[in-house]
């Protein structure tokens, strides 16, 4: 692929030279030289300095983490029952939260993309709210709604349902903070594809559901996948809202981030465990990204 791409311009050069050679003999010298490639010559060079600092800001902490890691204790730390329990809980709750987000978020994104301007703006603002609020505030808000003394707490208590400090609360907190990522991503994709293909499909006799299933969803697939990845990653890393709304009970609500926090805040000896667990979380995140990217390049397009 890359080799072909490199060869093509050279072939074009030589044919152009061969053609031009007859008419303008003076133009042939230098034919064998590759054409100079244009770089970003229109932008100031000093822009590179902050760009390099930005890369350093993003990457150096992780390098420091790896350097600081006591590799001898890593296997024991990440295979300890507590760590595996936290990891299992994290993966399960994040997966459930992602499914919940897809089920609720795709219809919301469709509604947003296809509603008139003002309504779409209102919906978008409401959807983005959890994105810009600190998750801690989200946790307090969830408690205010579903907590024992919350708005719906009484009703739920009568029905015999208790949500705060259960695994369900973890899922709700994760869905609350990660839903915006999914919705915004899919809505953007839906807006970009427009309605022209949907109109064609309807004209060919497809029912609304068929249009949605066979045209709208496949066309929005890249946005959907990106949204799901972001949503899952955000759910996996969710800490603030979970800590307040679900608590930190081992095996019930202690997800990986909470386990890391607990380890870090415990006796100083366990700091290494926290770092090892962080490594585990990083590995899971990277694995998800790689998996999705590989699947995407293999499928559609």
């Amino acid at each position: 692929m890359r080799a072909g791409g490199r060869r093509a311009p050279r072939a074009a050069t030589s044919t152009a030279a061969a053609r031009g050679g007859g008419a303008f003999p003076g133009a042939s010298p230098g034919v064998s030289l590759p054409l100079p490639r244009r770089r970003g010559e229109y932008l100031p060079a000093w822009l590179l300095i902050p760009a390099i600092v930005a890369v350093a800001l993003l990457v150096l902490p992780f390098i420091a983490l790896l350097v600081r890691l006591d590799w001898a204790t890593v296997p024991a730390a990440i295979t300890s029952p507590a760590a595996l329990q936290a990891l299992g809980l994290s993966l399960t709750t994040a997966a459930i939260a992602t499914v919940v987000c897809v089920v609720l978020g795709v219809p919301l994104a469709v509604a947003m993309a296809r509603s008139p301007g003002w309504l779409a703006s209102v919906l978008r603002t409401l959807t983005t709210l959890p994105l810009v609020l600190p998750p801690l505030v989200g946790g307090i808000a969830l408690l205010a709604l579903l907590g024992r003394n919350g708005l719906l707490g009484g009703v739920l208590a009568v029905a015999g349902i208790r949500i705060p400090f259960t695994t369900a609360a973890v899922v709700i907190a994760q869905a609350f903070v990660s839903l915006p990522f999914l919705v915004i991503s899919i809505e953007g994709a839906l807006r970009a594809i427009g309605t022209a293909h949907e109109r064609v499909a309807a004209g060919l006799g497809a029912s609304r559901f068929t249009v949605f299933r066979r045209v709208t969803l496949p066309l929005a697939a890249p946005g959907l996948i990106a949204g799901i990845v972001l949503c899952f990653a955000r759910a996996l890393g969710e800490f603030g809202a979970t800590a307040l709304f679900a608590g930190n009970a081992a095996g019930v609500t202690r997800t990986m981030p909470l386990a890391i926090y607990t380890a870090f805040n415990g006796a100083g000896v366990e700091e290494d465990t926290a770092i090892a667990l962080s490594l585990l979380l990083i590995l899971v995140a990277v694995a998800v990204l790689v998996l999705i990217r590989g699947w995407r390049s293999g499928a559609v397009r």
Partner: protein
Amino acid sequence: MKVDLRAGRGGFTMTAAFEARPGEILAVIGPNGSGKSTLLDAIAGLLPAVGSVMIGDRVLDAPPSLGGPGGARGVHIPPARRRIALLGQRPLLFPHLSVRENVAFGPRAQGVPRAEARRRAEKRLEEVGLGGLAARRPAELSGGQQQRAAIARALASEPEALLLDEPFAALDAPSAAQARRLIAAQHRESPAIPIILVTHDPMDALILAARTLVMHDGSVVQSGSTAEVLGHPRSEFVAALAGVNRLEAVGLSGGAVAAAGLVLRGHGGTLRQGEPGSVVFAPGSVRVDAVGPAVGGAGSGAGDARSGDAGSATAPNRWAGRVAQLDPIPGGIRLHVAEHPGVAVDCPSTHAVTLGLHPGQHLAFRIDEADVSVRAGLG
């Protein structure tokens, strides 16, 4: 198909009423913004509209009326159940499906089993000359091939009417010719369906459509046989669209007419002395010659029975003038003379070179009687 509709979007309103028979291609011409696409969208049910649309005895739209087919609520069949295919300028193939699956989409959506739908798709693709490309993705096809696949897809859904919205506008000349032939072949197909062809190019209408409807500012300004609509436009507007000279005329004694300072004889109608009317002729029908000693020498129409009085500006169908404006047109040059500014004359490129056309040049013009259309009345 019977259509009588009023529809609008964004403050613009379009009204049109017409009928198109099965097997007929009806052309709708007009400039951008005249309401052509609005009309098609309304017929396809994609735009809210008031009025009625019928195909055969199937009512697709009916206004609310107590005695009407839809009673007090009227009728509006949604696009998916109208059986009307709409094909636009862009092919809009589904990029995630193979060409075959694109064409099979219509039958599949209508409940045809997968194998049968594929078989139909293959057959349609053969018809449009894409039999070997069925397994490709749309992105692997050229623009012309994509549009032909889109035609195959539209026909595979077995519509009861076909709406074409500038289907050739985005294609290069050979691809457009190929697509045109496919559409032209369609009205010999059975079952015959009405085809509405929206185009900004009157030549598409001339080639494909027996009847033509002209739209301007949201309403129909002229309709009839394509030959009549384009051959003798009833307004300046349609004349400009058809690319012909249309001049207000007054009858002279002896059967000639006076128009824009010219004395012309034509066919199609006669004006009594003093009677108002109009003449129409194509700028390309006018023969341009040099004036003066060079007459006949510059390869002008030798053998013409009347070449003896070339340059005499008083004889009918002859005039002279000084070039005021030269504009390039496909295949030649359009010129206007200072003496008759409302009359456009087209000179083929080879002839323009022979004459050495330049502003200020003195030229003689003549036109055959057979190329001048005369009609009485101001309509």
